[in-house]
Structure formats: structure tokens, C-alpha cells
């Protein structure tokens, strides 16, 4: 995954990616182009994200949806555990998983990780993209599945927490509560790609 001329590119290893027909060549390798308006990870990379998932990271992904971001990430990771609770979204995700053998799909409510933790393994990277009022809670509940020193990314949608309070105030509040318990590595406002969204990156350091 690289950013070139402001574009997020993902190396193409599998023949089919239902979401990206655009390809570009870069230093002799073929890349798929990712849309920052559809992916908060891509939006993060465009706004300066320094800690995206690395090549060998096992990723725990919450809110996989129909698999847009997942379809790119799964091409570089050895294992992507994808949690999604909408059956219809999961159908789409399964179609993608047929093409990408690194996706482990879980149809489950991320509010209750106890119900599926036996189906997980320790992750190097936690990515949480769930637009719910309790999204921060959901993120926190999954930190225990992240290895020590692992990276957690929270795609924060302030509108889901409160549609009336200004986004930056909610963001600061969330940042404050997170800060008390963990090391914040970086954070980005995802404007103009994603309205009222932030990306907060933490390191799972149990000493705090």
C-alpha cells in the first residue's frame, strides 16, 4: 500500500477486485487505485496517516460492510478477521472472500466480542469503522485482542455519537478519554474525503 501523487495504491495480486477497475503501474508493478471517498483508510493515507497496516500484519477489522476497504487490505495481509453484523453486507463480503483467501468473515455484533472471541486470534492491527453511538466502546472492547505494541485505528464518525454537537468538540472529548488509557500515536481529520470523520491511531501499550 503506497501513496503516489496523492493516490492510494494497493498492489494487485489477485485477478478480481470488484471495487476497483482502475489500475496504475508504478516501478513495474501493477496497482489498484483506492477511493478515499469510500474508504476511511484511504482517506487517512491522503491526510497524512503514518501507521497504516503493514505487509505482514494480521488485521482485525470491525464493520467490514460490503468489503470495499477489506478488498484492498486483504491483498497484503496474511489474515484479515472481518466482523460485520448486517447479513446483507455479509453476503457481499462472502463473494469477495471467495476471491481473497485471507478473509475470515464473522457475522456478529461487535458489541459482544465474548460471543466470537474463540474464533479470533491475536491481531497486529485493529481497524474499527463502525458508525454507531457506542463506536468508541466497541473499539475499546477489542483492544485485548491486539498484541502488545500493536496499532489500533478508530475511524470516528462524530455524527453517530451526536448529530447536534460540533464534530471537533466530540473528537476532542473522545481523544481525551482515549488518552487517559493509551498512547495516541497520531490523529487526522478526514475532511474533505469523509465528512465529520476522524481517524485516531493508538499503540497498544499495556504500561499505561
Amino acid at each position, binding site marked *: 500500500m503506497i501513496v503516489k501523487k496523492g493516490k492510494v495504491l494497493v498492489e494487485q495480486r489477485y485477478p478480481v477486485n470488484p471495487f476497483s477497475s482502475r489500475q496504475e503501474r508504478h516501478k513495474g508493478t501493477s496497482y489498484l487505485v483506492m477511493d478515499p471517498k469510500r474508504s476511511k483508510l484511504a482517506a487517512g493515507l491522503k491526510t497524512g496517516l503514518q501507521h497504516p497496516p503493514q505487509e505482514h500484519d494480521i488485521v482485525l477489522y470491525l464493520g467490514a460492510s460490503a468489503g470495499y476497504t477489506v478488498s484492498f487490505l486483504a491483498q497484503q495481509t496474511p*489474515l484479515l478477521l472481518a466482523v460485520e453484523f448486517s447479513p446483507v453486507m455479509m453476503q457481499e463480503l*462472502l463473494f469477495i472472500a471467495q476471491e481473497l*483467501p*485471507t478473509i*475470515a468473515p464473522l457475522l456478529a455484533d461487535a458489541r459482544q466480542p465474548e460471543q466470537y472471541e474463540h474464533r479470533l486470534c491475536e491481531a497486529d492491527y485493529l481497524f474499527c469503522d463502525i458508525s454507531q453511538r457506542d463506536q468508541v466502546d466497541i473499539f475499546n472492547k477489542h483492544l485485548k485482542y491486539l498484541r502488545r505494541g500493536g496499532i489500533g485505528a478508530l475511524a470516528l464518525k462524530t455524527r453517530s455519537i451526536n*448529530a447536534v454537537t460540533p464534530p471537533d468538540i466530540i473528537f476532542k472529548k473522545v481523544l481525551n478519554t482515549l488518552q487517559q488509557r493509551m498512547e495516541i500515536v497520531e490523529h487526522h481529520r478526514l475532511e474533505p474525503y469523509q465528512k465529520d470523520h476522524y481517524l485516531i491511531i493508538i499503540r497498544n501499550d499495556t504500561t499505561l
Partner: protein
Amino acid sequence: MKHIVLHEQTTAKVLHKAKAQQYHKKLVKENTQLTIQDLKTHEYVDELLINAIAYLDTLQDSFEQQGTKMREALRYLDPETAHAHRDMDSLVTAVRNKGSALGKSSALGGTIASTSKHYILGMIPPLLQLKEEKNRVKTYLEHNTSRYLPNTTALIGPELAARLVQLSGSRKKLAFLPSSSIQVLGASKAVFRHLREGSKSPKHGILFTHPLVKKTKDKGRVAKLLADKIAIAAKVDYFSGEYIGEQLKKEVEEQL
């Protein structure tokens, strides 16, 4: 010596990697199987309720739109009939019953060629079909709401019950809504305006369409009373399935 250690390390690494890969494969396989199983047993009750009420809306819209064009064309041929039936349903029925006698006894209608008359009459079968399809969906909604939301349905009828599921998202979400939210469900624009700009808070949302709210002067109070009972009904529907619909109805009548 150094060489050997290095070699051992690489072997260990390779072994470790192979093992990890196997384990990952296993996780993918098992999770995929479990997920497919879960999808197979999912019943899509909420999804189909929401689909049906939204489908009914589109049928209703089509019926009104096509009917309006029919009424417009009918004015040139038989304005008396077009005028006599304000309600679209009864207009469609009246036009069907008159058939080719349409326009014959009209004093104000124009001179319409027979091909044009056929053009107008040709609009009726699709309208009747839409009507039939609406009834089919209504029957389906009646059946499914009284099965899955017996108490709520007894209280406010199948369409409004399905509408509340649509607006809240699911039976579960509806069951967890406080009655104050149920009272204004469907008035989200007004709620936001109230929260943002401090305008007057809305007194009712979709409950406005309920006959009891419609006919009273004190809409706020009746909507609140209904919402209180719906909140109970939806919870009982979701958690126990016990039938207390008649009792709730009686309570509403008494407190009116």
C-alpha cells in the same frame, strides 16, 4: 558455529511460518463455514417487513401518479365522471364499470376519436393491477405484523406497526426506544431543528396518521398516550410474545 546457528534459525522461521499459514487457513475456513451457517438460518423478518412497507409506498405512488394522468385525460372525454369521484380508488372503479359507455352521456366532454378513447380506457387495467398488488401487500403485512408484532399491531394496525419498524430500523431497536422517541418517530427533521435551533419540539411524527390522533384537537396528548402504550407493546412483542393487545387497547380508550 555461527553458520549453523543461523541455519537453525532460518529453519525454525520457515517452520514457524508454515505453521502460522496453516493456522490462518484453518481460521478462514472455520469462520467462513460458521458465517455461511449463520446466514442460512437468518430469518430476515425485519428486512422483509421494511421491504414490504416501502414497496407499498412505491405502489401507492405509482397508483396516484398513473391515476392522476388518467384523470387528466378523462376530463377531455367525460369531465362529469372525473369530477364526481375525488378518491382515486372509486374513480378507477367507476371508469372500469362504464367501459365504452364512457363519455356517451357527458354534456361537457369534447369530441374524442375512438382511438383516443381506447387510449384512455387502456389506462385502467394497469391501475386495477396496482390496486390488486397493493391489497396483496397489505394482506402480507397484516399476516406478518400480527405474527411478529401482535401487540403493536392490535394497538395501531399493521401498516403503522410496520412503519414504526421501518423508522426505527428493527423490532429490536423499536423495543428499546423510550416512548418519547416513539412519539416523534418520523419527525426527525423537526427533532433536529429543535435540538439545533431550539425551535418547538415536535408533538408527533408518524403517529399523526393514526385515526385517534387525527381526529382529536389535543394531538400532543393523544400521541403521547399512544406512544406510551406502543412502547410497552413493542417490548412485550420483542421479549415475550405474550398477548396483551386487547388490554392495551382498552387502556388507551379509558385514558382518552
